[in-house]
């Protein structure tokens, strides 16, 4: 079973603050994803990547940057946080090269922007 970890688990910042959310997966998956989950909107894809150095834009990318430094590590950056970015953020990974579409999710990071 895939292991996906996220840090921090909770974060409070102020408007205009700089936040980095971290995600690590240890099962050598190629694909990694960042989602935000909000009531009434489900899971919305922010950015994803299919390998180190690669970045693909998701459905709600505005205000977010992401970087995939290694196969294991995927970071989400909020350089000027706004209250609208208060949300629960999930990271996920999958290995589509093995004909498996299943995404494995991390425990989530709850971000509050005051």
């Amino acid at each position, binding site marked *: 079973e895939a292991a*996906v970890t996220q840090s921090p688990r909770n974060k409070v910042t102020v408007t205009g603050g700089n936040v980095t959310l971290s995600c690590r997966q240890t099962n050598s998956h190629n*694909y990694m*994803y960042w*989602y935000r989950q909000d009531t*009434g*909107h*489900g*899971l*919305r*894809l922010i950015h*994803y990547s*299919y390998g180190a150095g690669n970045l*693909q834009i*998701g*459905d709600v990318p505005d205000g977010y940057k992401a970087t995939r430094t290694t196969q294991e590590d995927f970071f989400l950056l909020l350089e000027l946080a706004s209250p609208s970015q208060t949300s629960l953020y*999930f990271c*996920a990974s999958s290995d*589509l090269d093995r*004909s498996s*579409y*299943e*995404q494995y*999710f*991390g*425990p*989530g990071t709850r971000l509050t922007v005051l």
Partner: protein
Amino acid sequence: QQQVRQSPQSLTVWEGETAILNCSYEDSTFDYFPWYRLFPGESPALLIAIRPVSNKKEDGRFTIFFNKREKKLSLHITDSQPGDSATYFCAASAGFASALTFGSGTKVIVLP
């Protein structure tokens, strides 16, 4: 434009009843439809999935019914249990290397 729509937003059933969750989609190129389940305080996890070559997929008490012509699918939870109380997300993707598009979710409450 929401490409994957779910209804109802919330659903309450009694223990033992069948819960029916609905999903529809816009993009005719979608060819993979998983359902993910999210318990409060936990991570979403794959529950069951179907591809358009089939119109039905069963896994225990969970069954997906798929209608390609109408671009609709539904998840049936038979003999619902209080432990099934969770939020269920329908999702879809097009092609082998495409990301998933999730619906807004259906919150299911099963009363004992």
